[in-house]
């Protein structure tokens, strides 16, 4: 399977990149946008999807500070 792993900062943890993006938007003429968070996207192909969660917890994300979500692409 092909999968897409979305990794984002956990709710409530300061995300300075997200804040910086959010702060810059009004100056560029984009009003009314809030709650910007910047995360990471990992794409991969796996022969066996059963251990993807474990892979995410061990390597791709740090569960202490990040949430992840595995999306199957096809």
């Amino acid at each position, binding site marked *: 399977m092909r999968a897409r792993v979305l990794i984002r900062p956990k709710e409530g*943890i*300061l995300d*300075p*990149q997200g804040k*910086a993006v959010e702060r810059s938007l009004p100056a560029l003429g984009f009003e009314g946008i809030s709650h910007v968070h910047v995360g990471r996207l990992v794409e991969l192909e796996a022969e066996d999807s059963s251990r993807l969660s474990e892979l995410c917890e061990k*390597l*791709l994300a*740090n569960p*202490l*500070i990040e949430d992840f979500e595995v999306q199957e692409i096809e």
Partner: protein
Amino acid sequence: MTSWGVLQFPGSCDERDALHACSLAGEARLVWHEERDLNGLDAIVVPGGFSYGDYLRAGAIARFSPAMEAVAEFAGGGGPVLGICNGFQVLCESGLLPGALLQNEGIRFLCRQVDLVATGADSVFLHDIEEGETLSVPVKHQSGRFYAPPEQLDELRERGQVALRYAPGQNPNGSVDDIAGVVNEAGNVLGLMPHPEHAVDSLTGSTDGLALFRSLAGVAA
């Protein structure tokens, strides 16, 4: 005489500086990341830099190296382990220390001399440092904001695991509770974002970092 091993990953930057600092408090050699044999070593430094490019997350890949597996075992047996900057990140990622290091509040990399205040925490690396003592040591990092979830943070404080704090008003990265360094429960593993190995020679800075390296010699003696 303390025999130090300083880990070297592809992408390490401060390993030679750490080697020099250790050599002022014993003898020291580099330990290549593929080495598993730590025989004959009394203490380990996981140095600063960008191990494996710090890709994915600072320290995330280095924790899986053979040398780090050996270090985990070494630490489990009570062996003294000092993680500096990227080394601190590696130790947190590998679970040898609590918490995590996040991107600086100011986002950018920051290189600056700061004052640290010792909390009096019990660690083999801090025996020569009194509670309340101030150390002038440089920081240089982009992901140095210490974080632990509230419950864990309370635990750390209760158990005296907060080892060093940034002096009031000098927190360079937004670390929770001004935390600059923490120890494990047993006190044999210390991690800190500031660089004591860059504070061992008056020619190039302060000498306040020497105490961390010499503390161990005092303990051993």
